[in-house]
């Protein structure tokens, strides 16, 4: 039952990514050129509601649908890992035009070359895991 719920959430997410065009390489390019409000509108409106919701959940101390405690983990405090890692991610986001969520969506939409990007992303994750202890965090 739970797996079914996750699957439905994922399907809905995939549809939204495709139909919003957030999965389009062109939209990401346009965003980084500040030529359109579209992507900023998506992220901005998601954030406006996301902040309201998250703060409300934290205050209400409510339980999950399954009766468990809802934990919204804070991110570990640091500067370097977020600044360096974030910039590396952004370079890839601009080049491949897809972040991880849209990668899955684009496989389903039949853009087979995205599999090369996904393979690269798994490889990048793997290499990070190998180098993790040598990198500044």
């Amino acid at each position, binding site marked *: 039952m739970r797996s079914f719920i996750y699957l439905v959430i994922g399907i809905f*997410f995939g549809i939204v990514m495709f139909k*919003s065009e957030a999965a389009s390489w062109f939209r990401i390019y346009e965003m980084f050129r500040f030529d359109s409000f579209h992507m900023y509108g998506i992220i901005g409106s998601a954030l406006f509601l*996301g902040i309201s919701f998250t703060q409300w959940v934290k205050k209400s101390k409510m339980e999950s649908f399954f009766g468990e405690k809802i934990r919204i983990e804070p*991110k570990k405090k640091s500067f370097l890992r977020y600044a360096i890692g974030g910039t590396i991610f952004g370079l890839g986001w601009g080049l491949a035009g897809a972040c991880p969520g849209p990668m899955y969506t684009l496989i389903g939409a039949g853009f087979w070359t995205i599999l090369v990007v996904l393979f690269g992303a798994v490889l990048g994750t793997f290499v990070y895991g190998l180098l993790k202890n040598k990198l500044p965090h």
Partner: protein
Amino acid sequence: MENMMQPWPWYISGPLIAFIMAILILVGKSFGMSSNLRTLCSIGGAGKLSDFFRFDWRAQKWNLIVALGAIIGGYLAHNFLSGDTSVLINQNSIEALEQLGIQDGSDAYMPSLLFGLEALSNVKSLALLLVGGFLVGFGARYAGGCTSGHAISGLSNLQLPSLIAVIGFFAGGLLMVHFIFPLIF
């Protein structure tokens, strides 16, 4: 129904993304898509080489199911919820792309130079896709999250680390599009 077949405007799409994050929180999980890449490494046996991949990946199975759903959602949206999938981007972007040699701005969902099947037999296109993916995967794990984990979930929780990461995302993206694109295309 006819409107649904059109591209969805930002004021529909953005709230729906917030809704997805909210549902995941309400079922006791969190919204973060790049964690799946680490899980895939663990399933592939990367734990033998780094303790970073030595964790109980079965506890992350739910997120793989979300990713599987996203694949199905992409299939459904493309085949049953779309007419013309051309993305009508701004004219300035179209012209800038033409200068880079990408001619199908506003004629397609993805540029054929990188995502058409002919790209699979083009060494340069393959290399760019592979490097782009590598940077996304490496950077997401280094920063501890991607667009969903930091820009949506983290900022929604008012996390300063996520703000630093998102500023990094944009610094990297701006650098790529404005300074590196003219060198590689």
